[in-house]
């Protein structure tokens, strides 16, 4: 029995007479003791999936199970063993203290007084909320509110915890604390499971056993981080430094295009650097052989160097690529081979579908 299982799960929203397909035949299986990271752009369907699995929303088609319980038909049983924490949500009543809020939530799960007391104290300690124990919730900072929210999520010691962008808006220290705790919590009991949605690739890589990439309601990749990276098969990522006029956007675009059309190039993106004009461009090759491009958050160097990250399907194509660049008049200063990162994988799967 899986901790979480979905079978051809779909959800259509009707909006002003239009049908919007938010989830399209989603099939996932999360084993007990696993942390699954769900990656996707805004509106990809991450939150819709979490809402269905956490009984807040009904699917239009398909079925889903939590520890063998049908999410639609056995919602009550499901609710006893799950919890959900979303980034930026209200963690309780503002006029109640941290402790009172946790007690309140413990009662929603019917915890006995002694269990509730013990668990509240443990969570207050684990979340480092000791000095805020008797402080009213509305007086907490964003970081501590989210710690309280996370504590709320653990209050019923759920078997399956859904974390919907839990580190949204958190500073580095709070986010790190949260990631560490999540990992330790699952490690402590292998019957526990987490489904984590996030925008942050590093976060997913750091804590998740498996990663699913969702795009326009469909799961387009579903592997462990290392397997995903190696899904680029013989793929290789190279960083190329090219001397060019940093202000000539047209020439950069043209360069990205030329690189992308070179043999063996799966994706190409301008790398962030010190100076910042907000975006950098990427171009990716579609499976059918066509291309698409777009703009990607990042920055462009102002030191006269343009740094390009290129994903190749085979490292034997590197010489051809360099030749193409030189033949097109670009001054290549360096070529450095690199291990594929999750970002490369993400670009490969998501980037190729955008544009």
């Amino acid at each position, binding site marked *: 029995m899986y901790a979480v299982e979905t079978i051809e799960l779909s959800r259509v929203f009707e909006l002003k007479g239009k049908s919007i397909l938010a989830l399209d035949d989603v099939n996932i299986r999360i084993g007990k003791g696993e942390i699954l990271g769900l990656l996707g752009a805004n509106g990809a369907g991450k939150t819709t999936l979490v*809402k269905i699995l956490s009984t807040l929303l009904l699917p239009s088609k398909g079925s889903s199970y939590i520890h063998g319980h049908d999410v639609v038909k056995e919602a009550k049983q499901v609710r006893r063993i799950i919890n959900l924490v979303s980034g930026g949500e209200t963690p309780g009543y503002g006029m109640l203290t941290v402790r009172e809020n946790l007690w*309140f939530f413990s*009662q*929603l*799960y*019917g915890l006995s007084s002694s269990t509730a007391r013990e668990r509240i104290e443990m969570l207050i300690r684990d979340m480092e909320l000791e000095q805020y124990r008797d402080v009213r919730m509305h007086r907490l900072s964003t970081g501590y509110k989210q710690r309280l929210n996370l504590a709320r999520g653990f209050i019923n010691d759920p078997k399956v915890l859904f974390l919907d962008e839990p580190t949204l808006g958190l500073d580095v220290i709070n986010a790190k604390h949260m990631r560490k705790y999540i990992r330790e919590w699952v490690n402590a009991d292998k019957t526990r499971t987490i489904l984590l949605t996030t925008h942050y690739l590093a976060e997913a890589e750091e804590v998740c056993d498996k990663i699913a990439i969702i795009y326009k309601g469909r799961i387009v990749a579903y592997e462990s981080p290392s397997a995903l990276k190696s899904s680029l098969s013989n793929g290789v990522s190279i960083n190329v430094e090219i001397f060019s006029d940093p202000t000539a956007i047209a020439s950069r675009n043209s360069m990205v295009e030329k690189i992308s059309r070179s043999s063996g190039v799966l994706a190409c993106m301008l790398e962030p650097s010190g100076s910042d004009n907000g975006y950098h461009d990427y171009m990716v090759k579609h499976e059918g052989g066509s291309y698409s491009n777009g703009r990607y958050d990042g920055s462009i160097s102002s030191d006269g160097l343009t740094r390009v990250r290129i994903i190749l399907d085979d490292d034997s194509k590197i010489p051809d690529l360099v030749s193409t660049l030189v033949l097109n008049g670009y001054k290549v200063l360096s070529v450095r081979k690199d291990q594929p990162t999750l970002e490369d994988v993400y670009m490969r799967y998501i980037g190729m579908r955008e544009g």
Partner: protein
Amino acid sequence: MSRGRGNIKDDLILNLKVVYARAYVRLKGLLREPHWSIAEVTIPLLSLCAYIYMYTMLDAPIEYMAFVIVGGAMLAFWSNVLWGVSAQLYWEKETGMLQHYMLSPASRLAVLLGMAAGGALNTTLRSISILLVGTLLFPVEYNLLDINALLIVFLLTITALYGMGMLFASLFLLYGREATHIADLLQEPIYLFSGIYYPVLSSQIFSQAVKLVASIIPLTFGIDAIRLLLIMGKGMEDVLLHIVGLSLLVAILLPSSYIALRKMEDVSKRHGRLTLRWQ
């Protein structure tokens, strides 16, 4: 079978805890924000005073002063039902708390009962304060002969009233943003028909049809019976009709509120509108 009984027992214990926990939030609010309670006693008193002066201007019989004060004390319950129960699920949604309730195995009815219980207890204190202050300010006289009848009528009124509030809560949840308007809209017409400031059921001014329509509002029977018992010195036999009417309302409103809650939750989940704020 024993497992089934165990489940029922577990559910019952869980939901009783939920009722208590939600009522606790209400009572904490009373203690933490006492100015709310002060406002909820003082503000209605301002209107009560105005209507008492109006009756004085018109040389109305002295018991009209007491009518207004009793009406004002009962009005506190209506305000609480409207804003503290009917609109509460909507507010919980707006503040993001509704999602937490919906995620939990707790019965939604238990959550509403908790709100109602906390609200009723809170409001009883406020209502008594209005009665006391009003009585101190104006030369009113009471003539209570049957305290048992008064207690029965009061409890039935409160149960029916909060049952109505729980029924509205589901409707408000469905109507989302319009909920505040609906709550606002219901306020004055209820004052009008339920006889907060004047007798309705015993008045010759209103037709039988109006009285029948007004009887749908539990407040109408409740206020009229309480006035008869508390001010006019009447007994149980004089308010039997009121008791029957209120009992009927309780029998209709409580199950309806449960059915409506399930129905609305289902509709909301289908349309994905259950937890979205500002929708």
